[in-house]
């Protein structure tokens, strides 16, 4: 398109944008105007005479009669326009008095062999050829008109004397920081602009926008020269890993891994999960034929305490362009701590006894229970010295909110005061806790939950059962089956192997339930269901939904303990134990603590600025803004640094501070929050600092980045080898030592073509009218 424009208008649109239009010979204007006027009068007179003599014209021809004078007038106007000598006035640089900074990406992604224009086929080779001292190279052409300064960049830019100093081996490329550094390096010189040779891979953690704004404000246009293919021929890449930052020891960790590919559609590959050199899971992933990316959900057990680096990798495939992007790591802190769960049961039941027993050996779960044995007589169990004692159900938020999860057994809604019900809803919505609603003859609709605040907790639709319904009917012989969502959910993983677990469910002994839950609420997800001859629709057995910051889970059977006692189940079988361990760990996973500290990411490049963000809440989980918060950072060398955190103002209870992580290795952060000298609590977190090779991910040439840099700084994107265009663009830059220059426009081909078209059109019409 630009080429066509240039052919018709003699110059590229860029020059028209930069230049100012004018007529070089204003003295001719009057004479030309007079001449044009005279010619127009003659033309009109000629046509009038011809019109009066032609009496046999057809009606159609009559309608065309006005065209020849119009064509001729326009043709004369074009000639007049040319005679006026139109010109484009441009500010161009004075040769050799203006500087250009050539900024070259010196990172290892430039060594990729995907640039066909280079003799050796690599991106680096193409850059070296463009910047060679041979006649006709881009550098040579630039040097004819400009003083050229070479700069190489990885993390930042520095001057180099020649391209021989380029190594193309730096671990990352931070384009924004490099361009600003180059601008600063050349500050004080008349600079026409910067020329960036890069593949567009930007590994900077910060947004590019700030750097571009700085360049724009300084009036430094950046001309980008992209190298590499916009799309790799054959490559598999672990594009994204979404893993929890913390899990309880022994939990099943669920991680989402996105794999991208080009050239491997339809191929099945093994995605391996490695924990400290030990493979903990292998998941087969098949790439779709049509698409390029696929997201796999990988589950594995986190059994070893501490900060664990899990590696997700796909073995290199034959013919792959790049192997270094076939793996990513995620830092997961495996915690050895006891999550407290409050189990409130309305009647003595084997279900609650066996549930507690199933998790009694789990050192990471501490189930405190309160069971109603008789009216207003409760039996509390497992309270310890760290747990507030109370009778019945808590009446204060501090008592309830010290737990991460609540299990509500067979207890009718009328037992609770309105405040207690609302507190339980707040426990999930505000505190972010997990609430598990168990089935039973006094639970859900049968327990009168409908129309009370407790109904909000249920992921299944509840019904207002009128009057006294008596004892609810028990539905027996329920064979549980997984829903499509349940087949991939960690809570239903009753065996280490997913397939084995999915096949196990239909073989388990049947259960029974009082709840006829058949309808999910909007936003709810069902994981297990069962068919019953007593209900037409499938009954929802296990479902969950989010409530504010927390979640609520419904499990409707009342006799899962049969899976522990049944003669069909071998004694050594751990299905029942595993069901409840998984369920309760899920219940309390991602439940926030009162005091939390988090770095903005789990991994950083050396030298990165790490933003630490702490959240401070009191015992009732109300955010605290007036607190003294200090983060003690233990560096890999063992040296400790204290960073005070300040209230962010943007959010209640949020405190922020920054720290520069220069050492490679694992960092530990411990935050201490106090108010009026009194300790509110402490929290810990970890992050890792390492070479991340971020630029190797999405390794194809990133035209969008290059285009953005050019357009936001007032530069242009130029292809390799387009030296003329680059020189011309830089020459008409608004920066540097400039001189005004007028370029003729009267000889633009478009004018000649228009003239020919007008005269030809006139002749054709006249011929049609019989006037030729």
């Amino acid at each position, binding site marked *: 398109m630009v080429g066509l424009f240039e052919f018709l208008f003699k110059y590229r649109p860029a020059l028209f944008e930069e230049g100012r239009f004018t007529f070089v010979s204003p003295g001719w204007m009057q004479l030309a105007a007079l001449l044009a006027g005279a010619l127009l009068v003659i033309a009109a007179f000629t046509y009038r005479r011809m019109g009066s003599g032609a009496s046999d014209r057809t009606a159609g021809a009559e309608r065309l009669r006005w065209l020849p004078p119009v064509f001729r007038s326009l043709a004369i106007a074009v000639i007049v326009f040319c005679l006026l000598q139109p010109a484009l006035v441009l500010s161009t640089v004075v040769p050799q008095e203006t500087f250009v900074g050539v900024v070259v990406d010196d990172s290892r992604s430039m060594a990729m062999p995907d640039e066909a224009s280079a003799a050796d086929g690599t991106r680096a080779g193409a850059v070296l050829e463009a910047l060679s001292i041979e006649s006709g190279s881009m550098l040579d052409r630039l040097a004819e008109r400009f003083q050229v300064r070479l700069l190489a960049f990885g993390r930042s830019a520095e001057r180099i004397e020649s391209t021989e100093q380029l190594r193309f081996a730096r671990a990352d490329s931070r384009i924004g920081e490099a361009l600003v550094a180059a601008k600063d390096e050349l500050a004080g010189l008349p600079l026409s602009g910067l020329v960036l040779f890069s593949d567009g891979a930007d590994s900077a953690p910060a947004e590019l926008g700030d750097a571009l704004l700085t360049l724009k404000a300084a009036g430094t246009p950046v001309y980008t020269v992209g190298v590499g293919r916009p799309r790799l021929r054959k490559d598999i890449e672990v594009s994204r890993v979404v893993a929890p930052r913390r899990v309880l020891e022994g939990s099943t960790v669920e991680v989402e891994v996105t794999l991208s590919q080009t050239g491997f559609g339809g191929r099945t590959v093994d995605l391996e999960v490695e924990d400290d050199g030990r493979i903990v899971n292998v998941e087969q992933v098949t790439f779709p034929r049509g698409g390029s990316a696929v997201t796999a959900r990988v589950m594995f057990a986190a059994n070893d305490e501490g900060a664990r680096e899990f590696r997700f990798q796909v073995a290199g495939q034959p013919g792959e362009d790049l192997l270094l992007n076939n793996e990513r790591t995620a830092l997961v802190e495996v915690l050895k701590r006891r999550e407290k769960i409050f189990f409130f049961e309305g009647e*003595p*039941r084997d279900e609650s006894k066996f549930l507690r027993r199933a998790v009694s050996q789990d050192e990471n779960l501490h189930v405190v229970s309160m*069971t*109603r044995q*008789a009216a207003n007589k409760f039996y509390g169990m497992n309270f310890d010295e760290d747990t507030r004692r109370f009778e019945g159900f808590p009446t204060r938020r501090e008592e309830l909110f010290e737990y991460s999860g609540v299990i509500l057994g067979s207890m009718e809604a009328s037992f609770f005061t309105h405040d207690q019900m609302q507190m339980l809803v707040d426990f999930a919505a505000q505190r972010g806790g997990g609430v598990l609603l168990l089935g039973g*003859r006094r639970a859900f609709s049968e327990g009168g939950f409908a129309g009370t605040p407790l109904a909000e907790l249920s992921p299944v639709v509840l019904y207002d059962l009128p009057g006294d319904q008596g004892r609810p009917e028990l539905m027996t012989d329920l064979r549980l089956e997984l829903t499509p969502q349940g087949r991939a959910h960690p809570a239903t993983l009753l065996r280490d192997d997913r397939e084995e677990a999915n096949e196990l469910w239909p073989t388990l002994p049947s259960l029974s339930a009082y709840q006829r839950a058949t309808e999910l609420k909007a936003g709810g997800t069902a994981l297990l269901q069962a068919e019953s001859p007593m209900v037409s629709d499938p009954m929802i057995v296990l479902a969950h939904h989010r409530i504010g910051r927390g979640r609520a889970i419904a499990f409707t059977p009342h006799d899962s303990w049969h899976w522990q*006692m049944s003669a069909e189940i071998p004694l050594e079988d751990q299905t029942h134990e595993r069901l409840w361990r998984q369920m309760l760990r899920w219940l309390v996973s991602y439940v926030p603590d009162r005091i939390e500290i988090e770095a903005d990411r789990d991994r950083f490049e050396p030298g990165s600025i790490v933003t630490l963000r702490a959240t401070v809440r009191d015992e009732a989980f109300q955010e605290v803004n007036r607190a003294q918060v200090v983060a003690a950072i233990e560096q890999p060398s063992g040296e400790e640094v204290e960073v005070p955190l300040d209230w962010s103002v943007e959010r209640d209870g949020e405190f922020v501070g920054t720290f520069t992580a220069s050492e490679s290795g694992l960092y530990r952060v411990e935050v201490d929050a106090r108010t009026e000298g009194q300790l509110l609590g402490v929290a810990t977190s970890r992050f890792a600092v390492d070479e991340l090779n971020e630029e190797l991910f999405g390794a194809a040439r990133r035209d969008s980045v290059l285009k953005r840099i050019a357009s936001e700084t007032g530069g242009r994107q130029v292809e390799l080898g387009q030296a003329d265009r680059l020189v011309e663009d830089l020459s008409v830059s608004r920066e540097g030592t400039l001189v005004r220059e007028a370029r003729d426009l009267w000889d633009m081909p478009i004018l000649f073509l228009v003239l020919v078209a007008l005269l030809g059109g006139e002749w054709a019409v006249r011929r049609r009218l019989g006037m030729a």
Partner: protein
Amino acid sequence: MRTFERYLSRPVDPYEVQREFYFTRLAYSGHMYRGFAGSWSIDYPKADRQFMIGLKRLLDQLDAYDYDHALPATDPELYRFPFLYSVEVGYMALSPAEREALRRYLLAGGFWVIDDFWGSWEWANLERELSLLLPEYPIVELPLDHPIFHCFYDVEEILQVPNVGQGRYGGPTWEQDGFTPHVRGIFDEQGRLMVVINWNTDLGDAWEWAEDEWYPVRFSHYAYQMGVNFVVYAMSH
């Protein structure tokens, strides 16, 4: 198990309405007992029914079957009833099939209360049976600070509960050479109490004759406290 069918009392279909709790009496095989077969059925069914009346009044939130409920160890449905009660185990002689079923039941999570057997001879029989049933688990004395004595009622002292005859007429509370009452137990590897043994005492008679004006109230009072605690403990631990 002809004796089981002979002695079985089923006034109401126990399964017409599924309950949370059944006071299930173990109908075991045994030696001849004073000329009768079926020592398991001593005090049955009245003791069971009368205990249930008291239990349901005291634990009013317990969804319990109102009547007696006896099952042999080999019944395939036994696993549905994780609470078992037995008496007169001095005459118990489990068959290999019963032993296997009962062992599985206890290790899977069942809870067994043994009551009403006296003296060293009967103890020796039970000890022999238990050594065949759960050879790897020792029998230990339950201390008074164990939660089973405090989970509902606080029991501060182990009383010797006499049979109805001796209780009514104020005779000695012991039988044979069982002068001192004991509450012993068997725990699994995780410290879960599987078996509670009430030796040299007869809680069952105290339940059965609790309404008898001649039977001392302190014994029936104590027997109910112990029985309620056993049920609460069984349904919570």
